């Protein structure tokens, strides 16, 4: 048989993608690892083999606080996106009866995803600000007399924006898993006298696990590496690992940024490896 049917054909077809990953993913990550052992002064980075970047990073209590803070953001965002995402997906998959409506409502959820994340963060400012809608409304109804200050530029704002941006990452894979659940299982459960809750707990949740795992991987990795949301929404008052790296880049301390990056990468990979034990991604497509 001619080319495209042979293994050679497959190699030819996969080469462009493999090359791009090699040049713009693998080599850059290796570069980061190498540079994390380099030295630097105010002007340049100097090839070397030192462990100072790591010993400084891991020896500083600031680093541990920043990691703790980042884990806090990740855990809170994960909990909220999972709760909201699961509920929304459950509604769409089991309570909306016609396929047309399922598609329409699903599209309504996904459309904001196609717009700029930064704009979506900015859009909270007129809502949460000191003179924002929420404070105006609360003060108008007399519930509070002073504007609430914690709404914008706070941890609250960071988690709110993260949940706003990333809940879709939970909805899509969980909805996908739920749509594959054989409906006769649910009828069987009902015929045998299972309540709605029992069906949810013993059939739907276990069978939605792959979707939950994929969504969790997405949300946790995105929040672990995020720096824009933290910078914009905390108004520079909080830190995250990503923000620390971005600050070091800004100061041209590349080897220090590289060491932070390596530690972050290892952390993220450990989390993902743990989650991947729950799901075989290739089977889920």
């Amino acid at each position: 048989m001619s080319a495209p049917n042979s293994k050679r054909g497959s190699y030819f077809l996969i080469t462009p993608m493999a090359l791009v990953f090699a040049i713009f993913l693998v080599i850059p990550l290796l570069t980061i690892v190498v540079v994390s052992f380099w030295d630097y002064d105010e002007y340049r980075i100097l090839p070397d083999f030192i462990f100072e970047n790591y010993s400084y990073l891991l020896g500083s209590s600031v680093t541990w606080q920043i990691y703790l803070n980042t884990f806090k953001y990740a855990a809170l965002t994960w909990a909220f996106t999972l709760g909201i995402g699961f509920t929304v997906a459950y509604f769409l998959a089991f309570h909306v009866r016609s396929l047309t409506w399922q598609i329409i409502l699903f599209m309504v959820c996904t459309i904001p995803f196609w717009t700029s994340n930064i704009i979506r963060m900015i859009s909270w400012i007129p809502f949460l600000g000191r003179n924002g809608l929420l404070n105006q409304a609360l003060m108008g109804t007399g519930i509070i007399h002073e504007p609430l200050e914690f709404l914008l530029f706070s941890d609250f704002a960071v988690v709110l924006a993260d949940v706003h941006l990333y809940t879709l990452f939970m909805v899509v894979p969980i909805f996908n898993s739920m749509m594959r659940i054989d409906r006769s299982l649910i009828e069987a459960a009902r015929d045998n006298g299972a309540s709605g809750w029992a069906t949810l707990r013993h059939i739907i949740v276990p069978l939605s696990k792959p979707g939950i795992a994929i969504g969790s991987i997405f949300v946790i990795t995105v929040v672990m590496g995020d720096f824009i949301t933290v910078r914009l929404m905390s108004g520079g008052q909080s830190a995250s690992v990503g923000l620390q790296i971005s600050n070091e880049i800004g100061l041209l301390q590349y080897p220090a940024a590289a060491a932070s990056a390596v530690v972050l990468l290892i952390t993220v990979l450990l989390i993902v490896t743990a989650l991947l034990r729950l799901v075989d991604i290739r089977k889920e497509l």
Partner: protein
Amino acid sequence: MVRTREKRPTAFYILAAFFALFVLFLYGPMLTIFILSFQGENGGLTFPMNGFSFHWFVNLFQQQAVGDFGGSFLRSLKLGAIVMVVTVVVSFMAGLAFRRRFRGDTFVFYLAIASLIVPSILISLGIGLLFNIFQIQPHWYSSGLGAHLTWTFPFGLLIMFAVFNRFDPSFEEAARDLGASNWQTIRHVVLPMVAPSLIGVAMFSFTLSYDEFARTLMTAGSLNTLPLEIYGMTTNVTTPVLYALGTLTTVFSFVIIGLAFGAVLLLRRRKAIG
């Protein structure tokens, strides 16, 4: 069995209300900046509206001191278009390759997954360092393009997986039995069948690139793309011109989504007629 319309359980109404709140949560803030972008000339960043005007939209195109809105918009447009074309072609090829097993297929697959989960700032830093060490000047169309492709390829590949997992190979076999060459089979049988999904890949990759920020940060070179420009504006612009920009780019994103859907519908209709 006679199908009667079942009465909806109470849970339905509770869940429907929850869903409605979720939609409000998604769209509410965007709606506020949309309204506020028509703020009057003396109006501020929050309500109340101080009149109604197009002042801030006009301002956006005049005020070159703040930044280079037009230039960065065009750059993002060009970059998005290049990323789109490359992603569609390369993902389609890779999708075909993965239809049979080859040595290293699992490795390439996990590279794609890795590309998706490695924090974007690491891609930015890595490519930036690489170019720095080899003293290559970064540009949006070289390092920037590469950085964006590491983001769009995984999505493209995963979509192609989903497509080819459900693809019936008997059409191709029929084409081959009728004497079609490999290229003819792909061109006249496979390609028309997967065309709607390829439009999906195209829309996905364009918008992902058009909105990408973190991966562009250290790879765009001296000229900004639109998200970098917007980000710069968030720190030093305190007028509703920021909202005007937000409204414009959002409207633009919606136009792209609309065009993609229109194209898919057109393809479906042509298929139904033909």
